[in-house]
């Protein structure tokens, strides 16, 4: 056989890292900061993910929430939904974990967004990976046109990054709007699903790049609204979630029809998946 690669890096071997911060931010989510033992930067782009390992528990794909501008460590916000994430929540600061990555495609923060208007539409923990792109854009604010951020959660208690939400809402150089599906006594803001915010924003459809990330059910409705707003499919990017076991295009779990979420995604240009039956 001519091919070869028995020598070479083991694609499944995680790099040693340490949890430097791990604290609850909602009833279900923890904010987690991780540093590689080697001291290297993750070197990711906004929208990429890592495979995070806890020895003895396993491995799972986790979105990176910090921007690449942050040096020395990276951040994630992890919802407690499965075995690994539950174990992760319980790990004390200083715990050693493993990290592989960064993997996957990223939001087009450079070529597809610079010089253009940007509309971020996020639902629930969909804000977590998008936050990386928002930071990236805000750190280079002058290089982008109008910036609009829409954020929806089920209830006020599920809102993430409260300090940042407050800051965004006060900034004059961006438009920030949020809504909750169901309010409570103290909630004075918008009530309704994310699509109820969309008619309130005025965008220039031909000059706007749209980033969409949220629970599976959200995409269909948001995409329809964007169509009504005349945003071309080429300028819409979605970040999709699938089961993953390897992150490197081998295990077969993350397939969306013929696409591999780990290699061809998680960020897809909507025009490329609009006709893919299993995508949205």
């Amino acid at each position, binding site marked *: 056989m001519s091919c070869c690669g*028995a020598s070479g890096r083991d694609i499944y071997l995680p790099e*040693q890292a340490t949890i430097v911060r791990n604290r609850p931010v909602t009833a279900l989510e923890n904010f987690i900061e991780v540093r590689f033992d080697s001291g290297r930067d993750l070197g990711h782009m906004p929208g990429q993910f890592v495979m995070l390992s806890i*020895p003895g528990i*396993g491995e799972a794909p986790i979105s990176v929430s910090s921007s690449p501008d942050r040096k020395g460590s990276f951040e994630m916000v992890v919802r407690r939904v499965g075995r690994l*994430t539950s174990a992760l929540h319980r790990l004390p600061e200083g715990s050693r974990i493993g990290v592989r990555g960064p993997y996957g495609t990223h939001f087009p923060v450079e070529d597809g967004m610079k010089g253009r208007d940007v509309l971020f539409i996020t639902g629930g923990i969909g804000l977590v990976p998008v936050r990386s792109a928002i930071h990236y854009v805000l750190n280079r604010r002058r290089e982008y046109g109008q910036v609009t951020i829409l954020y929806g959660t089920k209830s006020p208690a599920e809102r993430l990054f409260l300090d940042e939400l407050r800051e965004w809402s006060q900034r004059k150089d961006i438009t920030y709007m949020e809504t909750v599906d169901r309010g409570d006594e103290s909630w004075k803001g918008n009530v309704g699903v994310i699509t109820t915010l969309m008619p309130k924003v005025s965008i220039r459809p031909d000059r706007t790049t749209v980033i969409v990330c949220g629970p599976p059910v959200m995409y269909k409705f948001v995409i329809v609204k964007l169509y009504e707003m005349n945003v071309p499919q080429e300028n819409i990017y979605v970040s999709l979630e*699938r*089961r993953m076991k390897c992150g490197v295009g081998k295990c*077969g*779990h993350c397939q969306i029809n013929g696409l591999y979420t780990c290699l061809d995604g998680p960020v897809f240009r909507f025009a490329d998946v609009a006709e893919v039956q299993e995508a949205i």
Partner: protein
Amino acid sequence: MSVRKLSASALKDWVAALVARQPVYAPQAKQDRFDYDLLKRAEDLRLDYDVTILPPKRFLQPPRETILQFRKGSFEPVVEAEPFVLFGVHPYDVVAIGQMDRVFSSDNPDVHYMARRQKATIVASDVQRPSPDVFAGCMGTATVSEGFDVLLTLVNDDYIVDARTEKGEALLKLARGLQEADAVSLGRREQIWKDATRFLRRHDLRCRPQELPDLLDGAWEHPVWKKRAERCYSCGSCVLVCPTCFCFDVRDEVEYDLESGRRVRVWDSCQLPDFAVVAGNHNFRKQRHERYRHRYYRKAKYLWDRYHFIACVGCGRCASACTTKIANPVEVFNTLLEDRP
């Protein structure tokens, strides 16, 4: 490298010499069927087998293999691989191994598979007896011209022994009684190869395999998926016996000290209900017919688009293994062909 000939008894002596030297995995009788197993005695080798229960992929991608170890929070690499011989591999299974080679060597090379693959010497064997469901003759896999180290073909009572690689030549150094293959025997082998396409065709696919990706392009909503999947138990047998299925799960196993252990990868199946479930229990292929359809699209379209091969070699194992007889790819594809607009 010249083509040579061995008598059946000299072949047996050669196999005995191989067995004494390194692990040899070869088809042997298992009650009324055949399967690969560690060959202990040359006389247990059954080159007249029709098909093995499981394909030989398990010696390259084992059903369960350690991919790393951990101890006190640190990860240590593990690559398990010892030299071995895969003996008597039918052409369709050789083609399947070639596909696995492509998958595991391209893009992000997989050191675990590749280490095993490099330690393997493959002795292929032309089919002497067709299995009940074989359709390799329709898939272009009835004979093979690459992807093996030695090819054996039974011609009358002798074996034509055709070494194609240095590994194959090295193996033949242990053989006694090799003769140059004569023109008559070689001519007979040509005829066997010609006949194989007809001979290994118990089911008749009514198109060329290269036409399958286009056929599937317009077949997403075809009733065949739901109709056949109604009888699917989601048992995963079709995947388990498939020589071109390579999807896997990854799990951690912990020792009693709760600090050390290993990460293993195990075979998985897209037909099992939880294959596409994400945390939070959303299942991206919840319905049986969605999983059933996925299997045929993966075989004949998705992997074609990515690697340019049809991931079905016509061994017929899935058709035989399926309890409810819905897994024969030829029946599925022929149904789609009949209804093609």
